[in-house]
């Protein structure tokens, strides 16, 4: 009896479930406005329209800047949808309650007019919105995560890793050779001691012990060690003295933990976007907060996390209170030397990384080059001038044409004292 009841119960529930599933599928399949075409041609035509005009703000199944679009013909009248796509602002201004509510819900983001779309285009677009790309969202998410992981895993350092491995292997091999040699010696000594063909001198030779202590105390040894130690001390002292006044490696902590690795490396923002003076002025310039805000108006946290990151909040505080951010200058050149960025970057075409090193890999910026006079002069001696397309150099090229060497910075006054010191 009880079995029967439970069986009945199960079948009853399964029936319910099937009805529900049927209803669900039915809703998905049949609530789309019947006027929307579902042919392959219409969907693919709609897809290209969607990619060209809608993609940056809308997804089919995901809320972005604007709402997720799939099911729009179910939620709204077909005619309303078309009017909204063609000119959303006109619909909103006409006082349409749905449109106004939608506009408010999405922070008054203005959707541009698409009055160039024909009625056929609109129907194709709606076909794509309703029937296109029915991908499994979980698969898409995991694919994206996988991509991110692959992206994050890349980076340099492979050659040095290999070097270390090779070094370690070599050391192990050498130690093994030493051990084997020691074993051979001891085995040979034992064998020779056991044989009776040796006279006393030979025995003494075989069994002699090295007197390490006397070696340690010998004059020769002490002279050698003294020389080595003295050389080491002198080298350290000279090296140390050479770093006086050289700030190479200086990596001050900054008021905001800004990462060049993230901005210039991962997101590939060109240096000039923020350092606007680099091509037109002496200084590359530290960006003011309004430049940060071009992006951080919208990006409030790192890695897509919710809420406002405490570091980004510092930009907002600076903007709200009209308070400058007190960045610490990393590269300091004394007043006695003149350096101009635009001359090197705009005219000379020098890459930022030539002097500043792998900025796009720096979590905290450090001074990569020594910025000593020798370093400047060295580059001026070796760098050829790009004269093409620059009339200024025409005469110089002509005058230099008899020389066998290429025209370098040193040939046009790059070693003159007054070029930098005046």
């Amino acid at each position, binding site marked *: 009896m009880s079995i029967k009841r439970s069986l009945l119960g199960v079948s009853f529930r399964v029936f319910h479930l099937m009805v529900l599933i049927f209803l669900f599928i039915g809703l998905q399949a049949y609530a789309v406005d019947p006027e929307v075409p579902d042919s392959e041609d219409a969907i693919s035509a709609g897809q290209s329209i969607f990619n060209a005009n809608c993609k940056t703000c809308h997804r089919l199944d995901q809320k972005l800047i604007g709402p997720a679009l799939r099911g729009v013909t179910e939620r709204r009248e077909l005619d309303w949808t078309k009017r909204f796509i063609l000119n959303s602002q006109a619909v909103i201004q006409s006082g349409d309650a749905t449109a106004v509510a939608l506009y408010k819900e999405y922070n008054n*983001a203005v959707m541009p007019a698409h009055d160039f779309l024909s009625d056929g285009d609109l129907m194709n677009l709606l076909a794509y919105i309703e029937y296109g790309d029915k991908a499994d969202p979980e698969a898409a998410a995991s694919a994206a995560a996988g991509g991110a992981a692959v992206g994050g895993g890349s980076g340099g350092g492979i050659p040095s890793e290999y070097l270390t491995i090779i070094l370690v292997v070599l050391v192990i091999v050498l130690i093994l050779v030493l051990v084997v040699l020691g074993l051979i010696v001891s085995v040979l000594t034992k064998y020779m001691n056991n044989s009776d063909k040796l006279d006393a001198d030979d025995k003494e030779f075989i069994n002699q012990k090295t007197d390490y202590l006397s070696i340690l105390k010998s004059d020769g040894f002490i002279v050698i060690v003294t020389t080595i130690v003295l050389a080491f001390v002198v080298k*350290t002292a000279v090296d140390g003295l050479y770093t006086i*006044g050289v700030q190479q490696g200086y990596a001050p902590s900054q008021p905001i933990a800004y990462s060049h690795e993230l901005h210039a490396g991962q*997101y590939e*923002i060109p240096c000039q*976007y923020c350092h606007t003076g680099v091509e037109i002025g002496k200084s590359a310039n530290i960006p003011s907060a309004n430049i940060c805000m*071009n992006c951080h108006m919208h990006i409030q946290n790192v890695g897509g996390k919710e809420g406002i990151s405490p570091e980004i909040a510092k930009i907002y505080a600076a903007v709200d209170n009209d*308070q400058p951010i007190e960045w610490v200058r990393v590269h300091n050149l004394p007043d*006695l030397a003149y350096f101009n960025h635009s001359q090197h970057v705009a005219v000379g075409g020098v890459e930022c990384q030539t002097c500043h090193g792998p900025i796009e890999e720096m979590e905290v910026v450090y001074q990569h080059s020594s910025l000593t006079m020798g370093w400047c002069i060295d580059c001026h001696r070796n760098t050829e001038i790009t004269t093409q397309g620059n009339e200024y150099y025409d005469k110089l090229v002509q005058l230099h044409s008899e020389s066998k060497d290429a025209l370098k910075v040193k040939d046009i006054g790059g070693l003159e004292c007054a070029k930098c010191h005046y």
Partner: protein
Amino acid sequence: MKRVTSIYSLAVVGIALGMVSCSAEGDYPGTEYAPQMYHSVPYEPLSQIPNEEEGMWLSNREDGKGEFYNSNPNNQHKMNMRMPVPNTVPRDPRGVLPYRLRVADLEGAALVENPIEVDDQVLAEGRELYVQYCSSCHGTGGEGDGKVGEVIGGVANLKGGAYINLPEGHIFHVITHGKGRMGAHGSQITADRRWKIVHYVKQEIQTQ
């Protein structure tokens, strides 16, 4: 044995010297030889030092402040750099007055003509400037698919129907003042350079 001891003590001193070396690391900028030569006497706009005690140990300033103190107490936030006097008007080398249309005046902006004539050099410069200032969001091809644009979202596809026929003055106005989700770039890019970008967008990106 004494000699050995002296050798080893010498080594220790040498290593210690190496450890305490004068080189820069982290927050420490390193030892300076003749520090007065490293620190600017005139107001240095990009490296100001507001601490009056900084460099007191070698100061011979008449006002009794530290040698390295470099900050202008008369400016807002004691900054060395300051904004131009209110209502001063900068002119570019050709004597052109700055762009004055108001943010909302997109209709007026549409009538403004590009003052720079197109040639190959202008287009090449425009391309370079576009890559520097626009490509992060709008993508190198202008399709709104730049790496930063994907995070910000809602970036215009410059080849899309809503944008392809926009007049040059409109594009210039939007670069200058921003629109929608795009910020104002007038402070970053000079007017001449903005017009060059407009040429590149019109002649290269929107004709592809």
